[in-house]
């Protein structure tokens, strides 16, 4: 009985974890067009001619133009996703800091989670099955 209830609680913990996780993934960016929205977009774009800087942080010609470009696109009523995807077709996936989920990045996202699950199984084995090692 004692063992069983313990197992149940690990399942609970796991399901709560998954819940947290999925909810975190769904946090949306800002909803209305504002200065904040521009910043949110430019913070997720790499300044391609700089070294390790975002568009938001950079004062280079390229970054300044990009900021204006994004503002004008937002004024035209484009959504964040539309802007990101059009920039990706123009400059490649390299420009966005969020790798997103695609065929190429499936392993990137799933590998750590898979390792976490495997680790969990190994540890559960150690703790709950009292065999001598």
């Amino acid at each position, binding site marked *: 009985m004692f063992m069983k209830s313990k197992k149940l609680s690990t399942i609970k913990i796991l399901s709560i974890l998954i819940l*947290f996780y999925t909810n975190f993934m769904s946090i949306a960016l800002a909803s209305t067009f504002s200065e904040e929205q521009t910043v949110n977009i430019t913070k997720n774009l790499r300044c391609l001619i700089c070294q390790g800087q975002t568009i*938001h942080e950079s*004062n280079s010609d390229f970054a300044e133009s990009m900021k204006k470009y994004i503002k004008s696109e937002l004024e035209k009523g484009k959504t964040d996703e539309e802007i990101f995807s059009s920039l990706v077709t123009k400059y490649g996936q390299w420009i966005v800091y969020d790798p997103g989920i695609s065929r190429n990045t499936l392993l990137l996202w799933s590998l750590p989670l898979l390792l976490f699950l495997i680790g969990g199984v190994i540890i559960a084995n150690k703790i709950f099955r009292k065999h001598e090692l």
Partner: protein
Amino acid sequence: MIISQLGYYSLIFGLLTSIFIFFNSSIQLKKNNLVISDKTFGLIGFQFFFVFISFISLIYSFIVSDFSNETVYNNSHTTKPLFYKITGTWGNHEGSLLLWLLVLTGILLGFILKSRNEPNNYRLLTTLFQQIIIIGFFIFVLKTSNPFNEIFPVQTEGLGLNPILQDPALGIHPPILYLGYVGTSIIFSAALASMISNYVNKSWAKNIKFWVLFSWIFLTGGILLGSIWAYYELGWGGFWFWDPVENVSLMPWLSLTALLHCILTLEKRELFKKWTIVLCIITFALSMVGTFLVRSGILNSVHTFANDPSRGIYILTFLLVLVLLSFLIFIIYENKNFTQKSEIFTLSKETAVLINNWFILYFLSVVLIGTIYPIFLDVILDEQISVGPPFYNKLILPFLIPFVLFMSIGPSMKWIKTNFRIGVKSFLVIVFTLILSFITVYYIGEKNIFVLLLFVGFFYLLFKSLDQFREKTKNFAQIFSHTGFSLLLISILLNSFSSKEIVKNIQVGESFTLKNEKIIFKKIAVEKEKNYESIIGFFEVLDEKNKIINLQPEIRIYNEPEMATSEASIKTTLFKDRFITINIIKDQNFFNVRYQHKPFMIWIWISTLIIMLGGMFAIFRKNKEVNI
């Protein structure tokens, strides 16, 4: 010129000594002789001495600006202040590797001196493995990165040091970081030695714990200095960018943290023997991967100052050999020596350590995969992707909540078996945590429930850690490092959610506002220094109480090499930093001004220092029993 030559020959002598030590200690191992090995240990002193002489010669060449030396010519200039001439010694590929070698030999010497009471064959075997690493690095330095190359004809002036590296924090950042990185080499060597000499037990754990703590403290300090430098030098107020080079220092830190908890368990309960050894190997491999990634120039990053693939390939090959060697030894000795009879109970400190390792290794895998996946994708499919903060936030933040909850209750678990009782006090801690979290979230105006949960977790950890002060046998090491960690998380979270920023293009005399503050651009002045010319902007900030705060951001135009950098002006208070930078706009009279409020910045630095302090407590109170 002669000094530079001296440095070179001293290196050669160092290599010869290494080879001699290697064979000498092999022979002694066979003889199983307990007396003569003191000679070997004396030789280790000589080896360190030779590298030290070599290193001093290079520093000397930098100080006197000996431009017959290629490294000095490429990285120094007569107009550099003395401090930057000296720090320039390791601000380049060749010099930094020489420093690496110095630490590598120095650590071995330290280990030998500190392990007088350990079994002789364990000490000899550790020496042997460390020599393999040392010889590998000697050859690497001499073959691909000789810091004493001569150039002819002798130049009269050098090319200068990259201005963004001319900074006090960055001057001492590499030596501190290297002590951390290279400290892991002795952990690696000792782990292999302990396996072969059947010494993976409590006394080994006691012996190696010092070096784990040593590396961990210095690595923490190195990362801290790097962050501080990035914060004020790179000019946009960030301190952590998930840049590959930062990740590379975080990875061994994570595995060292996991190892630290395992070593303590091994010391107490003789548990997790295999896993501890594996962690020792992983930790060192990650330090080497760090060197490989940085030195090979594979990374697109602000830190890369070497772009020579052959160097990277050498390190990678060397690393592969070492890892294969260690796994071979692991497989051979695995079942011979690792008997473990103790049982693990569900509610025990052992379980807490396992869970700690589970999460830390997960975080490590996120950072590792996030860092190297893009490289593989680029090589294999020729597709370039960026893995930036959104990736790390999504994969790490949700897991941080259960992690800190386990971390909160872990320390109050007992070894072997715990009987939990939930008293009124623990209930009060929870209520207090919830109230404080609600207030905080309300105050920063964040409606997201997950931000609330993060605060709940972090505050709970803080109070539970502080609560340990009431215990009869206080474990300061654990209390300080855990308290520091919770404070760090809280400050980072507060900082990221309530930073404010405004960017304006204005002329002298104009002003703008941020929240209740008025920022006035008073005047501009030009000053000439020895190695740069600076344009200084004078700003006055009127805060909500109409108190005047003066800020003087600069644009520095360095002469050698010619390059402009933006120097932030920062006023730190307990609750927030005021951070301002200016930039020139081409062809115009305007200046681009970026003014920021960065709340709780100083707490990020302080809490990291508290974490390090915890480590120091563990080192200096080693006679007393140290609990996790």
